[in-house]
């Protein structure tokens, strides 16, 4: 099943297309873990059928942007030092 994701950006320019990005994204899938975050390498596209998962965007003070993207999560990135995991 396709996953739904959300990202906070200050500027839509942070979501460059056609290259790998590292973003902090949160899941919008229904269930107990909705709104939890992870850091991930991703690729985004303004073509909504480019990737299976969808991405919606919120701006600096939580405003929902009307721009929508599709997204591919390439891999999870763990930033937290191993001693705390």
């Amino acid at each position, binding site marked *: 099943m396709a996953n739904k994701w959300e990202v*906070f950006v200050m500027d839509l320019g942070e979501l460059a297309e056609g290259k790998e990005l590292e973003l902090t994204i949160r899941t919008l899938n229904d269930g107990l873990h909705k709104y939890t*975050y992870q850091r991930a390498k991703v690729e985004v596209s303004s073509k909504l059928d480019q990737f299976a998962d969808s991405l919606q965007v*919120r701006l600096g003070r*939580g405003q929902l942007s009307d721009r929508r993207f599709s997204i591919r999560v390439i891999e999870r990135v763990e930033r937290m030092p191993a001693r*705390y995991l």
Partner: protein
Amino acid sequence: MGKISAPRNNREFIDACVKSGDAVRIQQEVDWDNEAGAIVRRVCELGEAAPFMENIKDYPGFSYFGAPLSTYRRMAIALGMDPASTLPQIGAEYLKRTNSEPIAPIVIDKRDAPCKENILLGDDVDLCKLPVPLVHDGDGGRYVGTWHGVITKHPVRGDVNWGMYRQMMWDGRTMSGAVFPFSDLGKTLTDYYLPRGEGCPFATAIGLSPLAAMAACAPSPIPEPELCGMLSGEPVRLVKCETNDLEVPADAEIIIEGMILPDYKVEEGPFGEYTGYRTSPRDFRVTFRVDAITYRNNATMTISNMGVPQDEGQLLRSFSLGLELEKLLKSQGIPVTGVYMHPRSTHHMMIVGVKPTYAGIAMQIAQLAFGSKLGPWFHMVMVVDDQTDIFNWDEVYHAFCTRCNPERGIHVFKNTTGTALYPHATPHDRKYSIGSQVLFDCLWPVDWDKTNDVPTLVSFKNVYPKDIQERVTNNWADYGFRGAKK
């Protein structure tokens, strides 16, 4: 002092509020995702009864208690007073109790501690097992701590701090929060843990007794466990944590234990704030790693929903900031007649009444207020004389608009301490907690001749002889007046 009989825990408080009509039980299912938050917000804006939501989607067995202290009636109930008590009565009671002898907490056995009824450790730890609400649509996350206490200890001085510092769930084991550098916890971190690169043990307690929550957000110099004892007239019952040496209120509904990381941060915010805006930017903030969760059977999570007036942040913080300033000014021998903050100023304006017995008294008040531990939380001090009723905004506003001289009465203080939450502050100042503050001196200058220079207040009470006032008042109905329509 007479025996105080205040609700000793959140459950007794809910019962008392339901009985007096100050809380409603909601049995239909409520969604943790926005719906509960929206209910609490509307309750705050309408001044309604507190919602006790007993059936939460996805979280059988848990409940929510929203807007616990967003009315003076509920504040009076929390203090064990008549719900109809007036604000000055509630204030006098707070001053009486917090000027009494500190009451030290006691530590009880784990077997007697309700908060240990369920214990999650190791791989079982997951904040998503708690009904953490999405309080406002568009918030940076679900907030675990909106009406709670973050418990820490200074490792050298040994003093314990309970502070209400918001905490967002980042993932099932990580929270981030806005701990300001001038707060007690902020100072402990910068003074000890951060320079050493050591983790700071913490415990978050949710569903506290209302007076423990009041202590956690009161800007008092008295350590909060003792302050809570003084407010409730009996020792707080504490119990040792599972994974660190801290002690937590045994009657709390939920305890989250863990460590504040000294060298790693995750994003926090944005979040709906007490000013009535989402102001402070999303940023990398103090990060809490969770090691254990313990909770009572059928645990109730307390929720405050900050936004436009009036919520308990505004009500209670206005209340305690004002009264703590009153104590401070009196400790310096200043002849203040009272201090009041209107909750709808979102605790930004201190109104101080004083007998203007010497020159510069308003400036002395402002310097003490802005220079104290309370100072970063408000940016306006308005000083009026002892003839002005500080609780009556019509009178205060009249005094301000007529007596505050634009050139001599307004004094701006630059480069003071602010917070990231000030809507009027520049983005740069928000980032670095840089503030600016202002005094509105509404006193007649002492060097004006009292008979010939100071204007006379033209009011019924002030200009007519007593006998005329009495005659007119007594004959009022006979003249044909039936009471003005408001």
